[in-house]
């Protein structure tokens, strides 16, 4: 058992317990969302002399690592630590809702104007705050040259944030978002490398950003996008994507439905299976996987076994809060 010192008080951290679990169990309010080291909502700072476990800094910018920031939900301390909650007002950016538009029956496009956020990589995600202690991650479907940020928010049954966004959020509303997070984005450099993009549901959001970024930067290699849904009603932006494919001979779009027979322009099967059947050898490819965590997990393994290099597989799993 180790001790956590926070604001002059001392809290116990049981063996195997995370700093987040230990503090919330003892009544300290620590913002959190994914509880699995992805969203960075639970970021805390350790004293300069603290021994921060390396795993708790995975994915943090090196500048933040150097200042001893860490993720409380994946921090299992091995010795006593003095920690603090960073002032979130320093880190959060004000944004205004500029557009709300249905993309299909369950997915809404939300436009946000955030003047202080100019610099991001298409495909990264932000944390959107309903209030100081309640946030969820949403991927950016826009590219930095767009006039506003775009999110694709899927309504989940009983989902607290997604239903609030669908039912309450209006154009003109003000809210706060975090700085962009995540490393699932397009990297210019190997312009001729073939790209495979696979997404399910609103997992199309980051892929739209990545795709448009790649096309804007004149990626010359083949780009294959597979978007999967259970049925046709779950697909969206179909016309926009078909149009992009018409204008860019190296871009190929394949919508996939898993519980319906194939129809014109639409393949039957899971997006991953259709993609891998058409591209069984991924040696030299770069692969992006976004959406349902189970899909991402199995697709990562399949892509890897199809000879994609580990470092060439980028993924954003839309993990939901397990509580």
């Amino acid at each position: 058992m180790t001790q956590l010192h926070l604001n002059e008080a001392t809290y116990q951290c049981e063996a195997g317990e995370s700093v987040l679990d230990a503090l919330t169990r003892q009544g300290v309010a620590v913002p959190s969302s994914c509880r699995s080291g992805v969203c960075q909502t639970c970021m805390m700072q350790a004293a300069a002399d603290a021994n921060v476990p390396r795993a708790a800094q995975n994915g943090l910018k090196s500048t933040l690592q150097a200042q001893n920031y860490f993720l409380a939900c994946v921090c299992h301390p091995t010795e006593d630590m003095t920690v603090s909650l960073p002032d979130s007002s320093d880190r959060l950016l004000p944004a205004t809702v500029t557009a709300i538009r249905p993309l299909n029956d369950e997915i809404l496009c939300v436009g946000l104007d955030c003047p202080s956020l100019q610099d991001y990589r298409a495909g990264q995600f932000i944390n959107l705050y309903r209030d100081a202690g309640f946030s969820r991650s949403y991927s950016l479907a826009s590219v930095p040259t767009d006039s506003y940020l775009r999110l694709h928010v899927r309504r989940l049954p009983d989902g607290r944030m997604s239903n609030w966004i669908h039912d309450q959020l209006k154009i003109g509303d003000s809210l706060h978002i975090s700085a962009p997070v995540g490393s699932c984005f397009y990297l210019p450099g190997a312009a001729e490398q073939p790209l495979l993009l696979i997404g399910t549901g609103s997992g199309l959001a980051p892929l739209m950003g990545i795709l448009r970024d790649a096309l804007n930067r004149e990626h010359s290699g083949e780009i294959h996008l597979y978007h999967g849904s259970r049925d046709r009603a779950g697909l969206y932006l179909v016309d926009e994507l078909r149009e992009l494919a018409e204008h860019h001979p190296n871009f190929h779009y394949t919508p996939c439905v898993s519980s319906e027979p194939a129809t014109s322009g639409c393949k039957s099967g899971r997006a991953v299976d259709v993609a891998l059947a058409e591209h069984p050898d991924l040696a030299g490819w770069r692969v992006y996987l976004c959406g349902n965590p189970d899909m991402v997990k199995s697709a990562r393994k399949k892509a890897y076994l199809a000879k994609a290099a580990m470092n060439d597989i980028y993924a954003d799993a839309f993990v939901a809060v397990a509580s």
Partner: protein
Amino acid sequence: MANELFHKLGGEAAVNAAVDVFYRRVLSDDRISDFFEDVDMERQAAKQKAFLTMAFGGPVNYSGADMRKGHAHLVARGLNDSHFDAVVENLVASLQELNVPAELIAEVGAVCETTRNDVLNK
């Protein structure tokens, strides 16, 4: 001495190249792939990296005791000498694929052999 092997093989860059080839072989090998099922691939890859660094005689940060603890649950699931041999065989094949000279591969094999009893909790 062992550290010299790590450098001869190309140090960390060689480990990174080998982990891709080796882990892919292991996952596709029906004799042992079950032991690698339902694990987080990234975490598993990090473990493969640690293992190869050790097998190459590089900086080691785990002891025989860790090795026993880390594999106890697999031994309970039936991990035995034949699986250990299969892993070594895949490692050798990976290094051959990467054109590592035979005498260095033999050295790597010898380092692996020293861990057999700890891995199998004998």
